């Protein structure tokens, strides 16, 4: 792909970033700043004027291996969910992008979107029905003689990952579809014309060209998976502890806004670092030095 001569001046179209910048400054950076500020205070200054500056919340976080474990668990669940979502989402996105039938395409699109619209709480209840000891899968497995005792499909990281993958595969698919659809089919056909098998043409032409989509989709799913609350709680019970669960507990049940803020700051900083690193690595792989 030829590149036009690099312009070092900032192009006028850069101003198009203004609305987004305004939105973020007002509704994200400012509130986040407030929250980060709270994490250094001993209480909420709004209701309690006698607050003092303190490192207490951060010390608590790093002191106890419980919270560190939660951070690690969160990242691990995020990474596994992303990997599986990619493996599952790619074939479907490929099918959708290459589908000629308009009806077939619309049907697949609806099949992909429908899970997202059931609503997060109802959908997680549905997974509980499927995965629990007396749920659909276990009942069928025992009836078919495949298992003697109920399989522990829930209240562990397995159940959480299944639930998260299910919710986020559609995001992966829809992100990939646009990119794969843009790949010139004639390039693949040329490869096949030169004697490559379909699989090899895919591996050496389609896959590399869809790397930006893989990058975008993975980032999206990872970010969502590490910030998920409802699914890990309902499908993991007390056996899985992620940072969002901790944050939620601190906000709603432990009356501890400062600590919640500290957890949020740590989660955000770690995630941003990971995302930036991932961005950079894959950016180098695709040869894109300009765009993230």
């Amino acid at each position, binding site marked *: 792909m030829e590149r036009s001569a690099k312009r070092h001046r900032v192009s006028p179209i850069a101003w198009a970033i203004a609305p987004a910048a305004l939105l973020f400054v007002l509704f994200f950076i400012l509130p986040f700043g407030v929250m980060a500020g709270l994490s250094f205070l001993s209480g*909420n200054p709004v*209701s309690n004027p006698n607050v003092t500056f303190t490192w207490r919340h951060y010390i608590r976080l790093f002191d106890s291996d419980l919270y560190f474990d939660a951070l690690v668990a969160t990242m691990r669940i995020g990474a596994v969910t992303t990997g599986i979502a990619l493996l599952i989402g790619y074939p479907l996105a490929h099918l959708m992008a290459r589908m000629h039938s308009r009806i077939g395409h619309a049907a697949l699109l609806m099949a992909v979107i429908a899970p997202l619209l059931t609503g997060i709480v109802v959908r997680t209840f549905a997974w509980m029905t499927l995965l629990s000891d*007396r749920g659909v899968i276990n009942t069928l497995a025992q009836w078919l003689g495949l298992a003697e005792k109920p399989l522990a499909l829930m209240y562990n990281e397995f159940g959480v990952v299944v639930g998260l993958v299910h919710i986020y595969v559609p995001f992966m698919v829809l992100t990939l579809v646009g990119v794969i659809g843009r790949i010139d089919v004639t390039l693949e056909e040329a490869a096949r014309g030169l004697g490559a098998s379909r699989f090899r043409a895919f591996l050496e032409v389609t896959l590399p060209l869809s790397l930006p989509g893989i990058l975008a989709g993975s980032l999206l799913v990872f970010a969502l998976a590490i910030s998920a609350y409802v699914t890990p*709680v*309902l499908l993991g019970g*007390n056996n899985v502890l992620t940072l969002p669960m901790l944050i939620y507990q601190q906000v709603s049940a*432990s*009356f501890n806004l400062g600590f919640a803020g500290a957890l949020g700051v740590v989660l955000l900083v770690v995630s941003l670092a990971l995302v930036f690193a991932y961005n950079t690595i894959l950016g180098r792989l695709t040869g894109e030095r300009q765009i993230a």
Partner: protein
Amino acid sequence: MTRNFSRRSFLKTTGAAAAATAIGAPAVHAQVPVLKTTAWGGKWGEVMKGQIIPAFEKEFKCKVETDSAFPYYPKLQSTPKNAPLYDVLHTNTSEQWQAVVEGLVEPKLSAKDIPNLADVYDYAVSDKICGVSAFTSAIGFGYRTDKGLAAPKSWKDLADPKYSGARGSYIIPVNSLGQMHLMMLGKIYGKGLTDLDAAYKALEQLKPIKMYDFTGGMEKALLSAEVNIGVLHDSGIYRYDGQNQPIAFAAPSEGVLSLEQVWNITPGTKVRELANAYVNFILRPDIQKPLSEAVWYSPSNKKVKLDAKYDEKLYNTEAKVAQLIQVDWKWYNERKDDIDARITRILRG
């Protein structure tokens, strides 16, 4: 593409108009005083919004706004004390205690301003309560009746091996029934409600135990036989009355824990008279009756006369309420963070 832009601008103007209408709405209500309070949803919310609130609004010529988007506490915490988000806070005892400690609600209600306080059972205004407990339910066991197992008689029955793999409790950091059960373990296996060491040991013995984050989850688990026994309040079982479900409530012999619905007033409220009137209203027998019967809560006003089937099962006499065990939430809240950390370690292992 031009089509897109005109559609976008059309939608934008409609959106702006809708937003403007929404902002304009409160201005209309500025003419009557507004009372801001909280209310649970579901059946409770239906009765509140359908009957109770309209009756109050009519009698006192005001408007009542009820917030049903739980959690309430962080929202109250985030508003200044002299302009609190709520005038009256209805929540459970554990939160009310924390609110008192942080100065967000009054430590004691005034019997002069709320005359009906004189008619409530002692537990409703005991020193374990700040505000008034207008209703309560009893925490014991919900269990399945079709598993050929005898009804549980003691809190210790939860550890019985015959329930292995089929017992349920709550995610303790977020659920007050779970927290109360923990304290109960201290009393049953140790020296009292504050014996945490005994409680932790007992919790260890209860593993594996399925944990839910709110009572609805436990109800569902019982109904689908995911668990055969679980810590649950009587309301959670009785509300299925008439549906022929093989579930029942058992009050352990050592006593039942009290899950109170507590009303309290914020110190910074600008409508103090109205707030007091509202709490007084909730305590009226003719108001307590429909609410109690809608969700099977036990009313705290001694003068309430419930229909026979409710009267039989709920805690509506001096003798019955004497069985209610109240915990020291102030003590628990002070240690909550440490307890939560310890519990998570025990259960995760």
